[in-house]
């Protein structure tokens, strides 16, 4: 039962260890760069240990975690995105914020929470992973002292996260009361057999658990916090919330659904499709007229979760492939878009308004092109990775004959093109936008700028490369998904 191959859990050990090391080092060194490189080295080490773990044939990690190829793939993704976010944070923080060690510690812990979620097969690890993620995010969202909106965002996130966590716990308790199991695999076996009181309580438990999960996914009707928190949070943290935090929960959901047979007309399928409909429509509609870029991305992220739920409802291996691909691509593209915002932002003065981006192509052509590419990918324009992601989802949906969901997906993503293009048109406009003053700290800014440029360029390169030649990634995902099935 408690058998554990230490080699397999090294990614988590390295992440936690790095957090502790960064904390300790910060007590005697105030060098921001040192903290950054320590964090970067820790993340690189984590990535390496993911590869080591992937090579290990012995994957026992107690009943709490199931570290298969699928989990390792997404852990790798989490590490990559976190690294990008950390690199993008450097110049953002470098200008005004003191005491930056907490930021990196929390970022590492949040990544750890996400990774645990991805691998969890047990209520205990699920819940603890979720909470590690949440609690770290409370700190990260309200991180900038000079930004009052961040406090409000943090408060909103905390109250809602805690409330929905309570829902989740109650649901888990009910499920446990009915089945006596807390491991997802055993639960899946139980799902079909219950009758009478048991079945009823079980379904209610599932409903409550889905509420807790729905909050993290920010799907309708648990989406209301998203724009406020994204707007209030520092841009790099918003990128993290939108990608790692959501992605990890989605993978978890996918894993559970992979275990149960998502029978058509079942409660789970019914709820998930209703949520998918509502999220696609609601998210896209809300984004339509938005003038604040961070809120726009927040709304669009709601819609993207809706798209991925379509694949989730479809079930089967094609759904695993679709979600894995879409999530990877979406994470990279959205993190890039937020990264551009981060580069233009300072904690006290975030580049939120659309006016800031007016005529950006003239002043900062490379950054503007990166921004455009990421938006086009999010919009799903062909030859960007986003298009292929959408195609996979449609394919998975068509495989299960979810025509209604596909139709809404097609219509709403056509709608989404409109608001993404609106931003692009502004970026390419001729007149100049609001002039932005740059903060002090030339040395750190220069390095931070270069770091951000390298990070953003490589992420854009990935987006375009995957759009034009996605075969390698698809092979990898195929292999990984096969292992999970």
């Amino acid at each position, binding site marked *: 039962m408690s058998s554990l191959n230490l080699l397999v859990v090294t990614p988590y050990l390295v992440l936690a260890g790095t957090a502790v090391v960064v904390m300790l080092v910060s007590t005697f060194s105030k060098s921001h760069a040192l903290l950054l490189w320590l964090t970067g080295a820790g993340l690189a080490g984590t990535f390496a240990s993911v590869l080591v773990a992937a090579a290990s044939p012995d994957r026992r990690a107690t009943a709490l975690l199931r570290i298969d190829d699928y989990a390792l793939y997404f852990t790798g993704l989490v590490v990559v995105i976190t690294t990008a976010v950390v690199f993008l944070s450097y110049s953002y923080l470098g200008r005004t914020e003191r005491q930056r060690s907490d930021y990196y510690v929390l970022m590492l812990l949040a990544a750890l929470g996400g990774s645990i979620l991805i691998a969890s097969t047990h209520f*205990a690890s699920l819940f*603890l992973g979720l909470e590690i993620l949440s609690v770290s995010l*409370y700190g990260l969202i309200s991180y900038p002292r000079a930004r009052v909106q961040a406090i*409000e965002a943090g*408060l909103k996130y905390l*109250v809602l996260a805690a409330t929905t966590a309570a829902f989740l716990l109650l649901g888990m308790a009910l499920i446990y009361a009915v089945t006596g199991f807390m491991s997802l695999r055993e639960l899946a076996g139980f799902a079909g057999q219950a009758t009478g009181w048991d079945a009823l309580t079980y379904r209610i438990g599932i409903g409550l658990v889905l509420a807790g999960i729905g909050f993290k996914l920010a799907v309708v009707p648990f989406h209301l916090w998203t*724009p406020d928190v994204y707007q209030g949070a520092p841009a790099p943290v918003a990128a993290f919330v939108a990608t790692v935090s959501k992605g990890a929960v989605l993978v978890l959901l996918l894993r559970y659904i992979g275990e149960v047979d998502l029978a058509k007309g079942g409660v789970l399928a019914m709820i998930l499709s209703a949520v998918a409909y509502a999220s696609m429509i609601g998210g896209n509609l809300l984004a339509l007229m938005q003038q604040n870029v961070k809120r726009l991305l927040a709304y669009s992220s709601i819609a993207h979760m809706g798209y991925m739920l379509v694949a989730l409802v479809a079930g089967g291996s094609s759904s695993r492939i679709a979600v894995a691909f879409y999530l990877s691509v979406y994470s990279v593209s959205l993190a890039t878009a937020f990264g551009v915002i981060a580069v233009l932002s300072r904690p006290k003065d975030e580049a939120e308004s659309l006016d800031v981006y007016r005529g950006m192509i003239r002043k900062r052509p490379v950054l503007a092109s990166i921004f455009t590419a990421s938006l086009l990918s999010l919009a799903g324009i062909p030859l960007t990775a986003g298009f292929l992601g959408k195609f996979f989802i449609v394919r998975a949906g068509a495989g299960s004959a979810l025509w209604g969901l596909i139709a809404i997906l097609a219509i709403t993503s056509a709608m989404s093109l409109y608001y993404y293009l609106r931003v692009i048109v502004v970026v390419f406009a001729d007149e100049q936008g609001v002039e932005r003053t740059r903060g002090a700290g030339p040395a750190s800014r220069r390095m931070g700028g270069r770091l951000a440029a390298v990070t953003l360029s490589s992420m854009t390169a990935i987006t375009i490369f995957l759009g034009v030649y996605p075969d390698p990634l698809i092979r990898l995902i195929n292999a990984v998904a096969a292992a999970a099935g």
Partner: protein
Amino acid sequence: MSAIPMGYALGLAAILFALGLVGVLVRRNIIFVLASIEVMLNAAGLAFLAAGARWGRADGQVMFVFILAVAAAEVSVGLAIALKCRRHLGTLDIDAISKLKD
């Protein structure tokens, strides 16, 4: 194994949970909201205990211990944010803290 039927304990948990939820929905003072969240978490813990008692296994109690840790972490960060709200926004009124909106 206790003599208390699980349904009763779960019912008590449901009532407490609902009271906590009312608190979160009704109260505007952050401190009360946080206290209400504690009540909800505690109720969920009670449900776990009741369930664990049904199966006669320690899992329920283990989960309670984890919930305890979570409650502690949540409340400490929550109170820290409350202090920040008071200092920077000058209020603890949750309704007044709504500058971020469409």
